[in-house]
């Protein structure tokens, strides 16, 4: 797949935004400016960015407990996202959702989810809806390797395959569900095999390579859009931080972490683009700096934003 400069810059920028956003949140957590849990997406950027890059603005995604990356890639506003994570009134969910519930239905992001597997049914229903409404939209449903052991994962894939729904299930296989490795949690290590139970097309892709993800998901999205063919794409990737702030990562080795960090999706993509003459070094450096500034701005905005008013405790419950 040929990549032009504009696309290369877009992909690179989004991945940098996610990485720096997550690094910033780690910092804010350490400084007790951000409170509560935050499951960070750093390391996995190529999956969200590659997959969402093939979507139309009106296509839908559903996300996970590790949802910052998806939200940013689905045209999320950095300020509103950062403010949401701090629980501010200016947050994309008015401070009521937080990291675990980042959502922006107007942009087709049906939301992060605190429940592992919790949005797989919803994604399937959105796909039914677009098919019934004949809008030609597609749904991309993100979830982790751990989520493939939840009942609703199977129930949903069965329905999608049976009813021929335009949904692409993207499994972000980072080899662990919290501390439990895929080997210790799943009878099959090759998670794409789970689609065999539903005669659903499936494949595994290098989730550290944004173009590989883009290519695979792009193909699947077109099948979904044009033939109502659902599919499963397993993207092998890695999370850099612990599962959550307090995780000492005893369940994995530092060698393994090193192995994956050597495959970092951002510098690898950048140098490939430079090698191929699509970008030049300076553009990359400038982009990085530009992203740094927008993250700083978003952070300042979020920190300076007001808290929700006490009355807001009771608003937004019923329509």
């Amino acid at each position, binding site marked *: 797949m040929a990549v032009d400069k504009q696309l290369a810059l877009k992909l690179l920028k989004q991945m940098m935004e996610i990485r720096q956003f997550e690094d910033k949140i780690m910092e804010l957590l350490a400084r007790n400016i951000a409170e509560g849990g935050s499951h960070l997406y750093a390391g996995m950027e190529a999956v969200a960015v590659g997959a969402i890059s093939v979507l139309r603005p009106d296509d839908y995604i*559903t996300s996970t407990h590790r949802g910052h990356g998806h939200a940013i890639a689905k045209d999320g506003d950095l300020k509103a996202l950062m403010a949401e994570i701090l629980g501010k009134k200016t*947050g994309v969910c008015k401070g009521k959702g937080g990291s675990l519930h980042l959502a922006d*239905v107007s942009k087709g992001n049906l939301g992060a989810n605190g429940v592992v597997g919790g949005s*797989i049914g*919803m994604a399937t*229903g959105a796909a039914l*809806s677009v098919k*019934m409404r004949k809008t030609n939209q597609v749904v991309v449903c993100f979830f982790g390797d751990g989520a493939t052991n939840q009942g609703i994962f199977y*129930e949903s894939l069965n329905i999608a395959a049976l009813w021929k729904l335009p949904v692409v299930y993207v499994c972000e296989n980072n080899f662990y569900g919290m501390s439990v490795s895929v080997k210790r949690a799943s009878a099959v290590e090759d998670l794409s095999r789970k689609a065999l139970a539903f005669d659903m097309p499936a494949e595994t892709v290098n989730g550290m390579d944004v173009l590989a993800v883009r290519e695979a998901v792009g193909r699947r999205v077109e099948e979904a859009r044009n033939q109502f063919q659902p599919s499963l794409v397993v993207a092998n990737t890695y999370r850099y931080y612990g599962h959550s702030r307090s995780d000492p990562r005893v369940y994995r080795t530092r060698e393994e972490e090193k192995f994956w960090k050597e495959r970092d999706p951002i510098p690898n993509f950048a140098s490939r683009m430079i090698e191929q003459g699509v970008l030049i070094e300076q553009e990359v450096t400038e982009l990085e700096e530009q992203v740094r500034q927008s993250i700083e701005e978003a952070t300042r905005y979020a920190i300076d934003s007001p808290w929700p008013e006490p009355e807001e405790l009771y608003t937004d419950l019923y329509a």
Partner: protein
Amino acid sequence: MREISYRQALNEALNEELVRDQTVFIAGEDVAIYGGAYGVTADLWKKYGDERVKDTPISESAIVGVGLGAALTGMRPVVEIMYIDFIPLALEQINNQAAKIRYMFGGKCTVPLTIRTEGGAGRTLGAHHSQSLESWLIHIPGLKVVMPATPYDAKGLLKSSIRDNNPVVFIEHKMLYNSKGPVPEEEYLIPIGQADIKRQGRDVTVITYSRMVLFSLQAAATLEKEGVSVEVVDLRTLLPMDIDTIVASVRKTHRVLIVEEDCKTGGTGAEIGMLIMEHAFDELDAPVKRLAGADVPMPKSPVLEKLAIPDPERICQAIREVLQ
């Protein structure tokens, strides 16, 4: 006015809403070809086909999840969970997702999802097909819970539930499907959240809902012969609860019996009683009393099943106790 069955009333409500709004569709186990385990969706599949009346796999959790996803994105689904006993399979999706999503997202979406189910004992089906789990559902902020007792209420409330932009759990009763009552030919709606005084009375208020409304009316008729005037309040909607109607009745009679079929501990009756305590304590001439289902799984044996839930006779007796 013509009389039709509760089943027929529900069927008409579904049919009318399917005609009225192209975004309405039905999905659930055996709702299409079979017409629903209790016949509520009879003939709709013949009319509307698989496109709008969908048999699903036996996947309760995904049934609600799929309904929710469709509701979030422009449709107005009516999904069915065949027995309330299977609601727990879908409760994560109901409680964590459908009911909370609007609030969690800062009010930036709506969830026009109706979940029809049925509950109650009476057919000696045993512990997995006889429960009344509504008290779990009233403990879910963001949800509405509707439980009609008559064909008239069933039709008007189901139509309102479908048109509501919030998730509604609509709970029918297996022993009411064949019961008949007047239902107008012309269209009408009954607002969610309004109780209905099914019988006016002076001496004591019975607060109840669903099948127990019928039993309570029978008891009231019996006691009338003894010179006791019983007011029967049919809640119709359990969440939000119509506290105004309850309090007005308590102000009038000063004595209350709550009748519920669900097992007692942690049941809806506790909430009703506590609300009365909070809003009308000084009006009470006697403690509010509960007559409820036994705190046991529903036994199969017909003799035990009858003992496990209130009946008109025991309601009479409980009213007499409240009057002492």
